[in-house]
């Protein structure tokens, strides 16, 4: 898995340095992924180099973060067994199990 830790903002011209949050572990397809409390699932996955969150039902196309504000539903995954979860709006919790979704999910 390609690690792209530099995607996380470390210094921001207006917001300054973000407060360091508690590190937690989520599981993507059973593999541990580092995450920080208070960030959405999608942020943790992107920082870990994961871009394909689901595949579509008709064309089997990959989808990931598109709008990132909870409108487009492109980033939906199976979270702790629940399909159709918007990962851009759902905050990480320690031990969460995330799986990619195919089509409408089960």
């Amino acid at each position, binding site marked *: 898995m390609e690690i792209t830790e530099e995607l996380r903002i470390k*210094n*921001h*011209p*207006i*917001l*300054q340095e973000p407060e360091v949050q508690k590190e937690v572990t989520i599981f993507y397809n059973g593999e541990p992924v580092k995450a920080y409390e208070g960030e959405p699932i999608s942020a943790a996955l992107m920082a870990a180099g994961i871009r394909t969150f689901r595949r*579509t*039902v*008709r*064309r089997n*196309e990959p*989808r990931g973060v*598109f*709008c990132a504000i*909870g*409108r*487009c*539903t*492109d980033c*939906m995954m199976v979270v702790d067994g*629940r399909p*159709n979860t918007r990962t851009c709006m759902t905050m990480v919790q320690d031990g969460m199990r995330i799986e990619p979704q195919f089509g409408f999910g089960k």
Partner: protein
Amino acid sequence: MEKGVCFTGIPSAEELAKAPGVPARSEMNKGPVAVIECVQEIPCNPCEAACPSGAITVGSDITKLPVLDAEKCIGCGNCLAHCPGLAITLVNVNYSETEAAVSFPFEYLPLPKVGDEVNAVNRGGEAVCKGNVLSVRMPQSYKQTCIVTIAIPKKYVEDVRSMELPIKRALPEPAAKKEIDKSSLICRCEELTQADIEKAIEEGATTLDGVKKHSRAGMGLCQGKSCERLVARIIAEKTGQKVENLLPATHRPPVRPIRLKVVDDDADIE
């Protein structure tokens, strides 16, 4: 191409000439003065409160453009840091015999250092001349907005409004702009392309609801939040209707997906 902030993001000469916050050149020649290049009537007035000498007036109707009384402006630059739109610069035409000084808000990293030579840019971000950094100020009251002042040759004073980043960042090459074609995805949820929407229109659909019933555009998980405007534009182009007459489509609650359990405790599916 049409000009102005609505079309290019850059205020046009006509818009600036009409803006009541832009002082006349004769006023600029008198000394440092705020140049408020605010040309859109939006509800916003922090500049008015930021001015310690009462030179800026928006008034009780806060969608009005700020009016500058150049006589009262003391050239302190406080309004620069408080304008959320970064629309204000401070211009000192008479900085020296040959140079003018321009101050502007700069919200990027890294910040320049006093004495640096930088590329001074116009409103569109294009480099027009070299500038020398005179000061880099960020007192606490500026709330993280940095005000940079640069000296530039006097003849560019009407053009220069900011500077390039002091270092070149290795930015990825922008992807080639792709025009919308028949295979462009319009409804992401139902995976419908421009061709699919056009087909629905050719087969008789003339409204958003018509296209929806014909093609399923807007019936997917996001319920048309992503495609509604795109579909409306295609219908408008194909049928000669106006986009604003087509919107909105029929909306029914809930506005976002909820679990069935929320409305029925006994629902046996989530």
